[in-house]
């Protein structure tokens, strides 16, 4: 490893970080967008190289500033981080071509450079969480990504965007502070912050109450960021009122990174099945089941398509929580698979809805009647994304639900099997409701003259829609990586 290759892990974080202030001072027009596009493309390529290198050469350990761990900060990349980092960077790179027109329409011109700067900071924070092997560093990156996403959400056109951002800020800060308390408590018992070092030292003090308290604080704090039911209250508002591009990006990446962090804490930071001795996994199953049922029912009653999809996201996070709650290799594999597949389907769906917003200016159910005939490509992407959300065979959503059901059957958790199936049926109802409004209701006069969305919006949407089909048919790559990742996390010994 030499030259660029040796610094790959650090570059992934540093490039967006340095690019952010540069983009902020670029002149108005399309230059800030072009700069951001370049950065996200570079990051996606680097993340791809990193995954390749990890799969072929094993774990990468990068010492920041040459300080050896555990004293210095270490970036430690294994199959799990590399996988999540590629999802984050990849989604960012696909979102950016889409962003040009959508942002021009939704963000006032003078704020566009700042918008892209915040976007890059958010990307930097999310990538940082995946890359770092130091738990305090995780907190710092968590706050970088959170603070920039509060700012991004508040840029929405309606005034409710401000109150949603405020609500998100208050809940997000409480979550991050809980995480900080937990980190402080385990530091006081072990004297280290390096995750690999913590994993070695923590087992010796597992019976201390302080460690248990720290564990509880960290899990609850991350659960707030993850929008785990019932800590999801910030999510529907934030997703509904944020600018479309922000919703796409956050829905496909932010909660995924939080889920990754949760897996890291549960399996790597606290090794030797520590979490099995606590009620954590039972709580995950209960909250997962509640999320799937309650949030899906909420989704059915929404009158705004974006809000409907936001509630559906809460339900989908429930599936991932359920997967973790099974506390088995199969369950964790299913959760990781769903993490990836859900990023694809929600990305495609929010992009398609964004295309409708671009044309109509709203996505309330009664404003989109008959648009499916006017915008066939956008509508097609919604159908594919919707089918994937339901879990129809041949789509990515089917694969993750299949593995989830296998994990449930493995433990003979019949209630969970029934809930997973019921959740799919509820998804049929809310996806059907969208399709009904879009296709079967007669178009209003204003909608008669609408044209298909511009190509720049349709192409990224279809890239994600088609990848839903591709990863539904070719499962070798995703299942292979997810299984390997579950193994790396140490979930196989459960």
């Amino acid at each position, binding site marked *: 490893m030499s030259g660029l290759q040796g610094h790959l892990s650090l570059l992934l974080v540093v490039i967006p970080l340095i690019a952010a202030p540069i983009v902020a001072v670029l002149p108005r027009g399309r230059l800030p967008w072009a700069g951001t596009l370049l950065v996200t493309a570079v990051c996606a390529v680097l993340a791809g190289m990193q995954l390749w290198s990890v799969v072929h050469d094993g774990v990468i350990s990068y010492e920041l500033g040459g300080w050896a761990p555990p004293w210095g900060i270490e970036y430690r990349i294994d199959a799990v981080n590399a996988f999540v980092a590629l999802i984050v960077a990849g989604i960012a790179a696909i979102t950016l071509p889409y962003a040009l027109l959508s942002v021009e329409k939704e963000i006032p011109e003078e704020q566009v450079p700042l918008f892209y700067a915040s976007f890059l900071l958010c990307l930097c924070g999310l990538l940082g969480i995946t890359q770092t092997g130091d738990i305090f560093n995780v907190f710092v990156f968590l706050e970088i990504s959170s603070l920039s996403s509060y700012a991004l959400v508040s840029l929405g056109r309606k005034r*409710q965007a401000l109150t949603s951002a405020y609500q998100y800020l208050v809940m997000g800060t409480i979550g991050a502070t809980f995480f900080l308390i937990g980190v402080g408590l385990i530091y006081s018992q072990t004297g280290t912050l390096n995750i690999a070092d913590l994993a070695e030292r923590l087992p010796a003090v597992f019976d201390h109450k302080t460690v248990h308290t720290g564990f509880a604080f960290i899990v609850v704090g991350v659960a707030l960021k993850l929008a785990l039911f019932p800590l999801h209250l910030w999510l529907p508002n934030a997703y509904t009122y944020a600018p479309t591009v922000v919703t796409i990006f956050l829905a496909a990446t932010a909660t995924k990174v939080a889920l990754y962090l949760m897996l890291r804490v549960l399996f790597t930071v606290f090794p030797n099945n520590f979490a099995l001795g606590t009620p954590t996994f039972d709580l995950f199953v209960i909250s997962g089941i509640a999320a799937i049922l309650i949030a899906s029912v909420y989704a059915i009653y929404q009158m705004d398509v974006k809000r409907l999809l936001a509630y559906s996201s809460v339900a989908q996070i429930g599936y991932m929580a359920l997967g973790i709650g099974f506390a088995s290799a199969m369950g964790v594999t299913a959760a990781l698979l769903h993490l990836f597949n859900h990023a694809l389907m929600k990305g495609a769906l929010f992009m398609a809805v964004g295309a409708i917003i671009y044309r109509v200016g709203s996505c309330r159910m009664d404003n989109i009647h008959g648009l499916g005939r006017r915008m066939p490509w956008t509508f097609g992407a919604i159908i594919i994304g919707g089918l994937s959300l339901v879990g129809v065979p041949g789509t990515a959503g089917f694969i993750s639900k299949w593995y989830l059901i296998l994990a449930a059957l493995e433990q003979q958790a019949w209630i969970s099997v029934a809930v997973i199936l019921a959740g799919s049926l509820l998804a049929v109802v809310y996806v059907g409701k969208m399709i009904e409004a879009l296709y079967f209701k007669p178009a209003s006069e204003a909608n008669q003259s609408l044209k298909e969305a511009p190509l720049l919006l349709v192409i990224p949407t279809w890239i994600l829609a088609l990848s839903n089909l591709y990863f539904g048919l070719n499962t070798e790559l995703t299942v292979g990586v997810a299984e390997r990742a579950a193994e790396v996390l140490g979930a196989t010994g459960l």
Partner: protein
Amino acid sequence: MEVVLGHYNYWVVIFLMMTGFYTVISRGNLVKKIIGLNIFQVSVFILYISISTVENGTTPILKEGFEVYSNPLPHVLILTAIVVGVATTALALALVVRIKEAYGTIEEDEIHQRDHSL
């Protein structure tokens, strides 16, 4: 008595933490919520600083004649956390200013009446 006095730093932390947390939850005024959030964060700063203390230790500056030092690492960590806290407060206050411009009020229930968003 030993439990109470021997751990007085933790009692201070717990008191501040609960005060802040309760303020965030119970107050309807958006600025008061931020103040609560700040108190909540400060309690964590004190937690970190107090656990870094070493008995009979001095401030962690190298000087002849002093052998025992407090642990400087939590100090550094908290310096970072303070910066994060300042950024959060600044962003929150900026949002409150914008909310005041958009709604003409910073009371949660009045905002809720206007468009059912909080």
